[in-house]
């Protein structure tokens, strides 16, 4: 059947309005699910939807095909209202093979749309997924879900049978069939993907042609095949006007550094050792040498941190990054930066632990490590971004604080923020606060540990400055002169001074913004990547009339000066975290409030539904 013929006989299908939808593409690691998801995200963003994404992939690079642990998935929620999270339960699941079906089916809502690639359901793949019989032949599947069995492999091969590609190459384009089909179902524009194909395969016209044809074939299949009775329309969301782009957390951290380098006019030396999920920052920065970012792929985590410290000693901004296991290795070096009182920015892209743990999954369990994970009294400033785009501002702020106070600043991102993306209103970099850098050049009255009365920061001196030759180090030193000192009272004074210097960063913290009433039954306190899930749950409770508010902390050390007061304005305090209860301990210790935790440590973002349930229990219990 030719395309024209199809158009003539097929009447347009009805479009149903949806406020939001949660879609997940799942398949084998080699099926290109991440790419499919990213392109669907871009199409949805261009369609004006607000959205949030959750890529989820195995730690193994090429896990054996067809296995349960080799399944890779990409989920996104898009909608016509604010979308805070990638969603809990799925409206639509695309399963490219039996393993993907087995792993993900449990998350599909009853009555949800289930699209499967039938050709992948052969004996071999069924065996690998542990299915004794073909689940597609089980009638209950079609009763429970709106099951669509599509032979994507055959339809793909047919669409490009005349192209000079081998079967393997042809088969590899089937993810575009899935993308085209789902794009039709949710009325997403194909143009962004067509553009992308053109650019990406500019040097390989055949592959470009194949992907284009298969994408269109998937789209046409939705339109023509009789199995899809309707498609869905999601109106554009009400979003602040302006220019948008999709932003992931890792890229935003990198670009935040670029902005800081440009504004401060300082070179940045970034020391890193490859580790999931932080490596993307190193790779991103390495592409932007024009910003005077010098990257060092160090021999180990310790060298990455110490090279950054050496750079800071030289008058550049030293930055290092890792995930939890690497941060543990950097601990002694961070202590050196604390006592040498040099600027240092440390990104910790948290992942599941302990030890190697779950390298590609998310967690929030490094808060205690960030606050206390060093020998002796070694306080550092700790910041946490709330969303992927927020990573940009937090990275910039980390540099600003580090050079102003001559302190290490730790930034706690996580695997969810690192790889997740959101539509991001592009900021005007000239509106970012200035980064004031003052290098001392005057030898008159100079001492290495002479302190700025406002910040308690010591002078930053670039080696090469005549008359200011001096020595610093890890041994305790006398305040002001910097001479080695073992004096007990001086040590006590220095311990307090280093702590006070970090405390003074509280001067930089704006008043805490409260989402909801200023007083009430329940305050939900969160930090980091759980922002979306908490906000969505709290707003749902608010629409039901509950006196619930939330605050989301960007500054974890020092804490906002007004937080203690805010906590006392509510009868109960709930702290949802992807750990066993770390911030909740800090709040209880710091403010003597009877805060309770909500904790799930599953390597996944918290579910809005679960937080909502926890809110309901506490809010109801107190009224």
């Amino acid at each position, binding site marked *: 059947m030719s395309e024209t013929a199809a158009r003539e006989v097929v009447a347009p299908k009805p479009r149903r309005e949806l406020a939001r939808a949660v879609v997940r593409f799942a398949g084998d690691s080699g099926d290109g699910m991440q790419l499919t998801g990213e392109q669907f995200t871009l199409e949805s963003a261009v369609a004006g939807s607000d959205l949030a994404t959750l890529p989820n992939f195995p730690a193994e690079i090429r896990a054996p095909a067809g296995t349960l642990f080799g399944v890779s998935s990409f989920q996104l929620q898009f909608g016509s209202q604010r979308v805070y999270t990638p969603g809990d339960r799925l409206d639509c699941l695309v399963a490219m093979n039996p393993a993907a079906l087995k792993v993900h089916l449990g998350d599909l809502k009853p009555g949800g749309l289930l699209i499967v690639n039938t050709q992948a359901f052969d004996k071999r793949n069924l065996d690998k997924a542990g299915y004794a019989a073909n689940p597609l032949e089980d009638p209950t599947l079609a009763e429970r879900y709106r099951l669509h069995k599509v032979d994507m492999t055959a339809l793909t091969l047919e669409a490009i049978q005349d192209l000079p590609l081998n079967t393997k190459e042809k088969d590899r384009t089937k993810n575009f069939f899935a993308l085209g089909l789902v794009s039709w179902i949710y009325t997403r524009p194909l143009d962004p993907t067509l553009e992308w194909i053109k650019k990406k395969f500019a040097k390989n016209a055949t592959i470009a042609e194949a992907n284009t044809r298969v994408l269109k074939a998937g789209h046409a299949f939705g339109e023509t095949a009789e199995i899809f009775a309707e498609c869905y329309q999601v109106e554009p969301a009400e979003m602040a006007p302006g220019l948008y782009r999709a932003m992931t957390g890792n890229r935003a951290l990198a670009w935040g550094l670029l902005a800081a380098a440009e504004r401060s006019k300082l070179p940045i030396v970034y020391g890193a050792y490859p580790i999931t999920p932080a490596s993307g920052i190193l790779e991103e920065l390495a592409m932007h040498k*024009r910003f005077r970012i010098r990257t060092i792929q160090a021999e180990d985590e310790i*060298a990455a941190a110490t*090279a950054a410290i050496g*750079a800071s*000693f030289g008058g550049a901004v030293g930055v290092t990054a890792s995930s939890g296991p690497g941060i543990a290795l950097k601990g002694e070096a961070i202590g050196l930066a604390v006592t040498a009182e040099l600027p240092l920015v440390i990104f910790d892209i948290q992942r599941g632990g302990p030890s190697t743990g779950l390298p590609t999954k998310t967690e929030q369990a490094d808060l205690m490590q960030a606050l206390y994970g060093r020998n002796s009294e070694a306080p550092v400033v700790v910041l946490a971004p709330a969303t992927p785009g927020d990573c940009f501002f937090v990275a910039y702020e980390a540099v600003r604080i580090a050079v102003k106070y001559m302190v290490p600043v730790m930034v706690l991102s996580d695997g969810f923020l690192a790889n997740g993306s959101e539509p991001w209103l592009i900021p005007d970099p000239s509106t970012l606060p200035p980064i004031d850098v003052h290098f001392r050049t005057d030898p008159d009255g100079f001492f290495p540990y002479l302190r700025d009365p406002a910040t308690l920061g010591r002078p930053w001196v670039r080696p*090469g400055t005549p008359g200011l030759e001096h020595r610093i180090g890890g041994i305790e030193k006398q305040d002001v002169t910097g001479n080695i000192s073992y004096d007990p009272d001086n040590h006590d004074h220095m311990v307090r001074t280093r702590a006070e210097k970090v405390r003074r960063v509280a001067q930089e913290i704006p008043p805490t913004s409260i989402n909801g009433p200023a007083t009430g039954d329940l305050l939900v306190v969160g930090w980091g990547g759980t922002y979306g899930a908490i906000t969505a749950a709290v707003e749902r409770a608010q629409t039901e009339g509950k006196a619930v508010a939330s605050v989301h902390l960007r500054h974890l050390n020092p804490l906002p000066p007004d937080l203690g007061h805010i906590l006392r304005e509510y009868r109960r305090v709930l702290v949802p975290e992807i750990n066993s209860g770390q911030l909740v301990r800090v709040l209880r210790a710091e403010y003597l409030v009877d805060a309770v935790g909500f904790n799930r440590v599953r390597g996944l973002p918290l579910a809005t539904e679960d937080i909502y349930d926890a809110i309901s229990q506490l809010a109801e219990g107190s009224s």
Partner: protein
Amino acid sequence: MSTTGAGATEVPKYTKKDFESDQDVRWCPGCGDYAVLSAVQKSMPDLGIPRENIVFISGIGCSSRFPYYMNTYGFHTIHGRAPAIATGLRVARPDLKVFVVTGDGDGLSIGGNHMLHVLRRNVNLTILLFNNRIYGLTKGQYSPTSEQGKITKSTPMGSADRPVNPIAFALGCGATFVARTVDRHIAHMEETIKRAAAHRGTAFVEILQNCNVYNDLTWNVVYDKEQRLAHELKLEHGKPLLFGPVDDRQALVMDGVNPKVVPAKATPPDRLWIHDESNVNAAKILADLFAPDYPVPVGVFAAVSAPVYEDVVIDQEQRAISEKGVGDIAKLLKSGDTWTIE
């Protein structure tokens, strides 16, 4: 901004005193480190580099107190990490002259990994490794260069470890300048330090150094007058490898693929081994030689030229800038896929 050495500003005429800091030196009386400190301070004026452009970086251990005593910029860091700190400093500030002062424990045990990588990268800095074959600061445990079977506080029945040879290690890592000198041979030490400091790339100098408290006379083979005369082989570029007393000169020659000691008198000139600093393979053979069966080579084993790590880093940055201009964050933010919401 000042730059190293030559340039607009005249380098002041320094003396040794200009490089002495106001800090009390806290090594044990009689420690070999005093001699090294003095030799380094004496060598400094000859480098022709403004004092403010010189930085000493150290790790932990007796030797690592060194920066406090130099009236230059200095950073006493953490155990074993000085090469990594210095690498970061050089990448940030290629205009500075950087020295790393380390010891056998700091540089070859806890910091062995960093030593390997700084040498293979060929970062432009000078490493002075004080080798006293003992942990002094922690009061006398054996070190990675201690001889096997060494009886120390932590090895009352003798150490089980086989020692690492610093010169062979450095050459194996691809070091571009490798030398050995002795704390009690002042003139040789000064000369070696100056040559190392002038090398472009990582210069590695092993200084045989005495710990008179925990490992006294461990290098007696080059201290004791008679032993020294019998064993010390001064490496000099372009000269034959001869050693021993005048009336009993010995020649080091190659016998097939093995080095061999033969009487010099009986050796025809064309069989002599002429020292060539540019021959790294020959240096690797020399690196393994030591008394009593072989001479103890001192001096420059190898000096070759190779690309410097931070030169490549800076060159890439310059290339990126000259091709596309200095980065502009406002432009970058708007690059790629964007869309407008009205």
